[in-house]
């Protein structure tokens, strides 16, 4: 009865996808990145980086973490995000069956190299709905600027 709970359509393909990724890792090929399923098991948190003319935005998908326990540092152009996710342990003695344990727990650390024009002195970080958004402003000098042409006649 219990195992039937986990048999859902698509499960088989998810398994294949996972297997494919593991094989790729084993064989040293990095083609797995082009997978349509972007969630890479074993990489926590997933990170997206985007740029605007004014800033560099880093999104770390780290659900279920106390924002106070997230550690964000910048050192020599490297942004480090570290923290710990505590697994909800079942109460001792309770009769609990575990069917799936896909969510990762424990400490994590990810490093992102920032573009050269990022200003480490002007950074903001906020955590909302499990996503940590870090915004690093670009240096004034590197922002696109419009140069006014003076009429010298």
């Amino acid at each position, binding site marked *: 009865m219990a195992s039937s*709970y986990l048999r859902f359509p698509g499960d088989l393909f998810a398994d294949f996808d996972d297997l494919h990724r593991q094989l790729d890792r084993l064989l040293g090929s990095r083609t797995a990145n082009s997978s349509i399923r972007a969630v890479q098991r074993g990489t926590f948190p997933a990170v997206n980086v985007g740029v605007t003319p004014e800033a560099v935005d880093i*999104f770390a998908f780290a659900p279920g973490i106390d924002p106070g326990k997230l550690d964000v540092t910048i050192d020599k152009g490297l942004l480090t995000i570290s923290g710990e996710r505590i697994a909800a342990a079942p109460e001792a003695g309770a009769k609990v069956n575990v069917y799936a344990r896909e969510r990762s727990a424990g400490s994590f650390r990810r490093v992102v190299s920032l573009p050269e024009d990022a200003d480490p002195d002007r950074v903001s970080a906020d955590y909302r709905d*499990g996503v940590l958004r870090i915004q690093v402003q670009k240096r004034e000098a590197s922002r696109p600027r419009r140069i006014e042409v003076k009429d010298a006649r």
Partner: protein
Amino acid sequence: MSTPQQPLARRDDNAVADTPAMIPLVDVTEDEAGITLVADLPGANRDTLSLNVDGDTLTIEAPLALGELSDLQPLYAEVRSGRYRRSFTLSRELDSSRIDATLRDGVLTLRLPKLEQARPRRIDVRTA
């Protein structure tokens, strides 16, 4: 760093429907009173999360909302889809009318209680 052509997170609703959904990672545990399902849905919020029970299929679906993203150019993206979707087949002893759901910091916790008659029961033996 690669430069993916996809936007960081799609804002257009039609485009969201076209992208393959991400499968959220879950923990599933069962105790005597029911089943607890915990799913990681970073970027999902309460207003747009949809939980549907159709027959014996439970579907969790949520778009990824990252806030204001205008003129953001993606540089590197591990999360390339704009939504989450995963379905589960429920078994008959679960009471789908009393599912309790909470979403906090991108973690969805679903409590699926068992029907009263399906719970283990201890029968007291009285002394006559």
